[in-house]
């Protein structure tokens, strides 16, 4: 479903991604780990279409289409979703109104009629349960004054509403206490099907106890330097990242 080949990207004159190769198939969960500054969040941002990054080399195919040629909204409409590390607070826009616009623009893209108010509300109520989010939160302005945990839960709620084919969770565990982590992870797990895939970008192994990956990749200095199964995450947890850095230095 996602095929990344030799992806290189820079911001200003600073090259951050230096040749990423990654294949993600339907039904898979991939974890991307790595020390701070290795390029994990940049990879997520480039995939989501953040415009301050410039792709200088490489290609990304998503469901058979050239992802890099698409605007951020086209990527979302094609089924790509990024849960933000720092969800933006937007005063004056309610989450409900925002989601209704998003859902209906996606439906229009797929040639489906807009949901009427009743169907939208019943869909919303159903998906709210998945992520244990309260209606009162959704009536408020988008993320405004939300706690860290509420913001992340709202991200997963949006994911539940938009039903992406590929979800990229960018450091979704950062700033979450154990209860919030469990709720968010449960939400993600309930949304998994054999047709969709998840990329979990994280610094720590903690989240991977809840969202169990099929593959773990270590990103370091803009490249994937090691790939393995979930045991690799445990090894990183036990030994830290220094041995990876040493391996790279020797090679």
């Amino acid at each position: 479903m996602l095929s990344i080949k030799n992806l290189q990207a820079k911001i200003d004159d600073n090259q951050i991604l230096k040749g990423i190769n990654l294949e993600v198939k339907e039904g898979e969960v991939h974890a991307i780990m790595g020390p701070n500054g290795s390029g994990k969040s940049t990879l997520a941002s480039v995939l989501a279409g953040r415009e301050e990054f410039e792709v200088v080399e490489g290609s990304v195919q998503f469901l058979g289409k050239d992802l890099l040629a698409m605007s951020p909204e086209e990527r979302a409409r094609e089924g790509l979703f990024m849960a933000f590390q720092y969800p933006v607070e937007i005063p004056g826009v309610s989450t409900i109104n925002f989601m209704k616009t998003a859902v209906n623009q996606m439906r229009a893209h797929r040639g489906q009629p807009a949901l009427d108010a009743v169907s939208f509300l019943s869909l919303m109520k159903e998906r709210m349960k998945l992520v244990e989010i309260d209606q009162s939160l959704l009536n408020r302005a988008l993320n405004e004054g939300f706690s860290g945990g509420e913001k992340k839960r709202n991200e997963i709620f949006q994911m539940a509403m938009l039903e992406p084919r590929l979800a990229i969770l960018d450091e979704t565990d950062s700033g979450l206490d154990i209860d919030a982590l469990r709720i968010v992870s449960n939400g993600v797990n309930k949304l998994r099907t054999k047709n969709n895939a998840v990329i979990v970008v994280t610094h720590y192994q903690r989240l991977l106890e809840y969202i169990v990956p099929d593959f773990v990749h270590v990103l370091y200095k803009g490249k994937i330097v090691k790939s393995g199964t979930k045991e690799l995450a445990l090894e990183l947890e036990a030994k830290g990242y220094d041995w990876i850095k040493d391996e790279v230095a020797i090679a």
Partner: protein
Amino acid sequence: MPEMNLATTDKNIASEISTFIQRRLAEPSDSVRAAALETFQRLGLPHPKHEEYKYTPLTRELENKFTFQQPATAPSLKDVTQYLIPGVDANILVFINGMYSSSHSRIVSPASELNVQSLEQALASKDALALEHFNQHADIRTNAFAAWNTAGWTAGVFIRVPDRATVSKPVILHYINDASAAEVIAVNRNLIALGKGSQFTLVEKFDSAGAGNHFTNLVSEITVAENACLDLYSIRNDNGNRYQFAQTDIHQKNSSRVNTYTFDLAGRLLRTNLHLHLDGEGIESHMYGLYLLTGNTLADNHTVVDHKKAHSFSNELYKGIMDESSKGVFNGKIFVRPQAQKTNAFQANRNILLSDKAAVNTKPQLEIWADDVKCSHGCTTGQLDEEAMFYLRARGISREAARAMLLYAFSGEVVDKIGHEGIKSYIDRAIGERFQKNF
């Protein structure tokens, strides 16, 4: 400040306007008018370097765009329906080209709530309340446009709200300039007196027909007695060639409440002076403003909140979005006099610029002579929040819809403050159309 009576071109605009005023004077013997004319002639129109007009070339525009030669043309406008605020049951007073149009006007509130007469009649009949307040609150000594207005106003209303009356239906003053045949110069004057404990909603709405240039000079003096409440709405959404000077002075007594709402949505040059004189204790005043500008529109809001006595509260929130080559000006003065202890005064001005050619000049001016006060001000100018744009687009929302959502939300902070449901939905619709809101 040195007097500045230098014209910007060879054309002697002030003398042309003087002649224009004199031609129209119904009673040349009127001493108030004569004195104001003399003041106007002495002041001249503000020079471009004048501190209060340095971003707003109203004098130059009057020189270049107007001849002042046109006789007052009888208004030909028959149907004014399109200018009314739909769905709002109100008392309607219509002025076309500065002349009162009785055929389009209607007073529906009972006399126990509302007393409306022409200001000319009220002054001619020596109405005590009218004489007490007329020409007492607007500054005509240093303000040339107000002096012009005082010398040359042609029509106006005197509205009196009796003590303890609650006026259930608003009064809407429609100022419509029909510039289809020739340029229009409309000079109007109002006096509004709210009795003790009364409640009143007043709306001014400015529109036009035709492609000619038109200028409105409107001065309103409003007195709000003890415990009275006033909501004042001023709506400028005129896509014609409107040039305008509007001055509103509101004089507040103890424990009165005033909310003002100024909407500059379209026009060529809109200069607004809004002065609140807080001459009492326990007063609460809110001033809200929203200017959404496109094309070459210039909207200049000069506000003054003058805390003259102790224990009062004022809060001001003006927000603006400037697109294309439009220009916004905000000048907010807060005075806290020595005896006005325990004053709370707040001011905020927030601006978004959507194009490289758009501009805003914002200047807070706080002069505080009392020592036990809480005052704050803040102004910001920026572009549309790119981070927020990306967040919305990352959820599949188009760039256009995301932009509309953010601008609509930015405006919403002011619109949400509107107390009158019918006016709120009218403004909400106008703003939605502006942003091509489709969500």
